[in-house]
């Protein structure tokens, strides 16, 4: 038994765990900003897909990775604006708007990918991000290689958790955002422009989802495939519920999910358990649903989530 454990929990396992968690942290925090402002951003899956494509393509042609990342962020923000137009300005159903955004963005990503790269026999590839060992820190035994010999985007993801928590809980803008998500009337009567705050939240949301997509096609992998996201966006939405709409707990949820995912990858590879590998692929999704069943009863979503805000209505 201990042999099996030793075989699984090597340093490589934890390095992989952090990498799996990174896009989930970006996506979850992106979703978090939107939901705390009262907008469920179901566009997440499509936005990540489109951003993964635009980021990858930009880098493919310019050879500049950071330009690709910026393109992905910009892509996410434009999609966030679309969500804002539909759910904030027009006050349409957030459910259907989000599904529409996802279908549209994923359609666009397929369309443009095929338009740009045609149907070639070899998959177009880029030179992906390399790990950046941090001086001194990466020399620490165990912890060093796991946390401090990672992609630059991983460091950004790790930094964004406390930054998000600080913004949400310790700045006037964060308080306004949370108020807009709880009771838009309260925010409005205190002079806060509810629509503006929700747009800002959706822009941040889209930018972070863009980062998630960029990480997948430019660091985790070095190519764009149609299955590059394969449900990670939806998982982020579940992680928010699991994390009770708190940035720390949601990020912890992302790490827990990544742990399960990394574990199933190891078990798949280790031939310790003889099951079709799809069963392992399924496990994180099944556990996510079970986890949601446990926490959802006592979960308290932002009170104004799904509620459009229209003034002058009688």
């Amino acid at each position: 038994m201990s042999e099996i454990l030793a075989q699984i929990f090597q340093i490589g396992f934890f390095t992989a765990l952090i990498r799996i968690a990174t896009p989930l942290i970006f996506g979850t925090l992106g979703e978090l900003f939107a939901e705390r402002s009262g907008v469920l951003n179901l566009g997440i899956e499509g936005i990540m897909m489109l951003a993964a494509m635009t980021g990858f393509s930009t880098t493919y042609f310019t050879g500049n990775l950071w330009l690709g990342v910026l393109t992905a962020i910009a892509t996410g923000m434009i999609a966030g604006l679309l969500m804002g137009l539909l759910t904030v300005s027009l006050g349409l159903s957030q459910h259907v708007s989000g599904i529409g955004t996802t279908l549209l963005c994923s359609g666009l990503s397929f369309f443009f990918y095929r338009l740009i790269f045609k149907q070639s026999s070899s998959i177009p590839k880029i030179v992906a991000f390399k790990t950046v060992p941090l001086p001194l820190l990466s020399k620490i035994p165990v912890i060093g290689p796991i946390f401090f010999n990672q992609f630059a985007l991983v460091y950004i993801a790790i930094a964004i958790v406390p930054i998000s928590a600080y913004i949400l809980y310790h700045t006037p803008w964060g308080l306004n955002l949370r108020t807009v998500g709880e009771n838009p009337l309260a925010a409005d009567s205190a002079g806060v422009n509810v629509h503006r705050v929700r747009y800002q939240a959706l822009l941040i949301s889209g930018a972070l989802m863009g980062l998630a997509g960029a990480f997948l096609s430019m660091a985790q992998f070095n190519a764009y495939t149609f299955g590059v996201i394969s449900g990670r966006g939806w998982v982020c939405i579940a992680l928010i519920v699991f994390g009770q709409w708190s940035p720390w707990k949601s990020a912890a949820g992302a790490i827990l999910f990544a742990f399960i995912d990394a574990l199933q990858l190891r078990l798949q590879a280790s031939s310790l358990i003889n099951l079709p590998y799809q069963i392992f692929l399924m496990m994180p999704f099944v556990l996510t649903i079970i986890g949601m069943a446990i926490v959802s009863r006592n979960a308290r979503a932002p009170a104004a989530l799904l509620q459009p805000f229209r003034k002058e209505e009688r």
Partner: protein
Amino acid sequence: MIRFRLEQRDHTPVWLNFILPVSAILAALIICGGLIALAGANVLTAYATLFLSAVSTRFALVETWVKATPLIFTGLAVTVAFRAKFWNIGAEGQLLAGAMAAAFIGARPGLPGWSLIPGMILAGGLAGAFWAAVPAYLKTRFKVDDVVTTLLLNFIIFYAMMALLEGPWKDPLSGYPDSPDIRMEAEFPILLRATRLHLGVLMAVLATPLVWILMRHTALGFKINAVGENARAARYAGLNITAVMIITAVISGALAGLAGVSEVAGIHFQVMAGISPGYGYTGIVIAMLARLNPLGIIPAAFFFAVIITGAEAMSRATGVPVFLADVIQGTALVTMLVALLFNQYRLRWNRTA
């Protein structure tokens, strides 16, 4: 300064039922015309190829109807679910469940031949129903968000299907991940000689008025509507919300499951990885375009069948990527959503100093 604002309508005029989806589709086509131009093709030629290729010959027309069949089923499935505000984004997974059950029954050697077709329909419907009842149960019992669960269940059943296809169902001779063929007696009869117009097409066309009657003329449909419009008021009025929700899910899932049955028994005669290129998701677009009215499902499903089949011909002829069909779907959903605003509101222009 001129400013506009939205004013509530007292009545929704009947003509809006036609105008709204048509204008939404036109808007989507105009927007996507930009993409065709970007791809370097002539917009009109591309659209002409797309639309004509799907309807110009008798054969193409029949094929388009065959393509429309699973879309009618998933469109109806989403319609019933969304009426109750059960956000079933899982028609895709329920379709797969139905297809797998049908392929399982259809290939049983021990069963009498006559029982295969009804058996497949029953098993496929039940499998889809079960796969939709799970999230409905989780929603009513544990308050788990239905959007997330139905989406995740799509992935789960897809992996389960692949495990079967690459495991017990793998073709021992070719090694392809395809399920064994169903028996001859299990294949849906062909209704029109020398075409693929099979029994499933008829079933889909007949299911539509049945769902309309269900929603419009039965107490159950009444309750589904009431729960969807205001679940709290329905509960206070004595309706059993949990029961209504689960029955809704069962009906919705069964309809989606039938899409899978029809694809297996009428077209592919087996299950393989690409059995559904997103029919479940297209069903959402179709249901919204039909404004959740079952009678609108057939034209909406036919339209998207034209788009999907026509896109291939258009792609061959003009080089515009076939994925234009996906973009049109997404765009049409968004434009329809905007158009629906005019269902409840009218635009008023105000001149103020």
